[in-house]
């Protein structure tokens, strides 16, 4: 994308090379597009697009491989961390990441993410948590909040029978193989800027070979929450952030040194 910039002007916007120029299938108001864009900007800035391999999940972002301009595989539900392990182990010079939702990562794929993290696999996971199963039409997710109404918890999630929402960022932080885990959000502009920094640090952690890295991103699903996009952002700020506090849950000294440019 070579653009001639006149001497008296400055380039302030361009379309990331790591994204394809197609219209996505995401609902109006969905935050997947924002997260895609952040990842693409980071991969561009790191100059690694041509050696990056992504793994798409089962869920709303199942077609992510059409939107990222790089090699991509489509995993079975929950198995992206196992696929990423296979790819990275035979291609250690590549940059590998999984893009997963809450049902994919925190329910059906719990074993795969915990063991990949525990082995300190050198790939990065972007975990989009919107507290619901989007693609199948709004069922209860492992991260659905207590009392939250979904099509499979019509009277609200009852923690006595359905258990509690799982805090994956805290859970994985316990594992020695994990170098960097953080929970961010894309609920407003300052949060989006912070989320981008976290995504960049996660990929830098991988490039430096420091261990497993994951960025959990609190997100919305206005369609299945039955809200307008703006209401959904407000609802998430009011309710999700309380249960899923933002911030780093694990940062090894080596990652901190990397962050501080030491």
């Amino acid at each position: 994308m070579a653009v001639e910039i006149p001497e008296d002007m400055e380039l302030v916007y361009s379309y990331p090379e790591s994204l394809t120029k197609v219209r996505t299938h995401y609902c109006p108001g969905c935050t997947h597009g924002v997260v895609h864009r952040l990842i693409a900007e980071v991969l561009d800035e790191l100059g690694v697009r041509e050696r990056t391999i992504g793994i798409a999940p089962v869920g709303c972002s199942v077609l992510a491989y059409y939107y990222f301009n790089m090699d991509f595989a489509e995993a079975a539900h929950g198995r992206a961390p196992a696929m990423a392990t296979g790819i990275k182990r035979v291609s250690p010079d590549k940059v590998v990441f999984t893009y997963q939702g809450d049902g994919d990562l925190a329910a059906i794929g719990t074993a795969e993410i915990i063991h990949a993290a525990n082995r300190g696999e050198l790939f990065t996971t972007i975990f989009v948590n919107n507290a619901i199963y989007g693609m199948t039409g709004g069922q209860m997710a492992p991260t659905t909040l207590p009392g939250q109404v979904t099509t499979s918890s019509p009277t609200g999630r009852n923690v006595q029978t359905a258990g509690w929402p799982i805090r994956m960022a805290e859970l994985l932080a316990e594992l020695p193989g994990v170098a960097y885990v953080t929970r961010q959000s894309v609920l407003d502009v300052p949060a989006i800027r912070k989320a981008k920094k976290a995504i960049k640090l996660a990929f830098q952690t991988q490039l430096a070979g420091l261990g497993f890295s994951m960025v959990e991103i609190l997100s919305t699903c206005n369609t299945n929450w039955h809200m307008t996009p703006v209401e959904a952002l407000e609802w998430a700020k009011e309710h999700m952030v309380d249960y899923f506090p933002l911030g780093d849950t694990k940062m090894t000294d080596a990652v901190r040194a990397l962050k501080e440019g030491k």
Partner: protein
Amino acid sequence: MAKELWEGNAAIAEAAIRAGLEAFFGYPITPQTEVLEHFSKRLPELGRVFLQAESEVASINMVYGAACAGARVMTSSSSPGVSLMQEGFSYIACSEVPAVVTNIMRGGPGLGNVQPAQGDYFQAVKSAGHGDFHMIVLAPSNVQEAIDLMVLAFDLAEKYRTIVMFVADGSIGQMMEPAEMPPMRPVRPPEERAEWALTGAQGRKPNIITSLYLGAENMERVNIRLQAKLREIEKNEVRWKEYSTEDADLLLVAFGTVGRVCQTVVREAREQGLKVGLLRPITLWPFPGQRIAALAEQVKGILTVEMNAGQMVEDVRLAVEGRCPVRFYGRMGGPIPLPDEILPELEKLNAEVGGEEE
């Protein structure tokens, strides 16, 4: 290379290494654990990838990933573990990436036991996973053949970009026999991986490997392509061995360990004056049905012997289409049918078809 004494499971692993295996992902389960153990020692010392996964579900998806990246890769398991892998088989078949899986079959159903059995014939041949597909299924009957078929398995997997299953029972996996290893093939360097593989889109359009095809016509187009490939495999890759079939009046059909036992049965039956031959399928899929149909024109009756309740016999009957009687003898859950059990069954069949002993 000279013959050495090899245990079946170790021989399977070493043959895969000689065939240029780059990575193994697996989970311990009896009676195949020696496969995993052999790899755990040999692959790291050769600078190749060995990983003990958290489950068979993870193993097969690691295989799927490494296969997408264009590496020569395999996993190994035994019956209950293979059941857990079936989701992955279906994805691999639809995505058209090459992968090899061994099933050292044990007694079932359920947790069953760790005795040799052939109860997974249906699973391997007819119901490997959801959707329309077949795996190429190779069945050795001794350690040397296991070695040779392991090498073939990788060549077939890559030639057709498909999944190849290698089925043996625990007795082949755990017996020791003199056998000859092939020479070590060099491992393919990463820069020579296939053009469809996920290697990073450097100076080319991105490669996408998926098994998702939304829309009825899209999915049908993929199915038509997959079926055409399977017909091609059926045309080119049917393998079997025959013993004393030239003048046979009665035909035994058996694979794997029982296929070997039946070689003894042929000899003993002929000593008794029964003209018995044996056809031993080596590829269970594609099945040597055409050859069996041709032999059904010659013989008076067929006895299929298996270590299950009668699974391959269905394919024999489909091939024979009533040309002659097809009978079955089998043991389930561990016992291996022996010549002195099989011979009376042959005599019964001989009486049924009005044959005489010479």
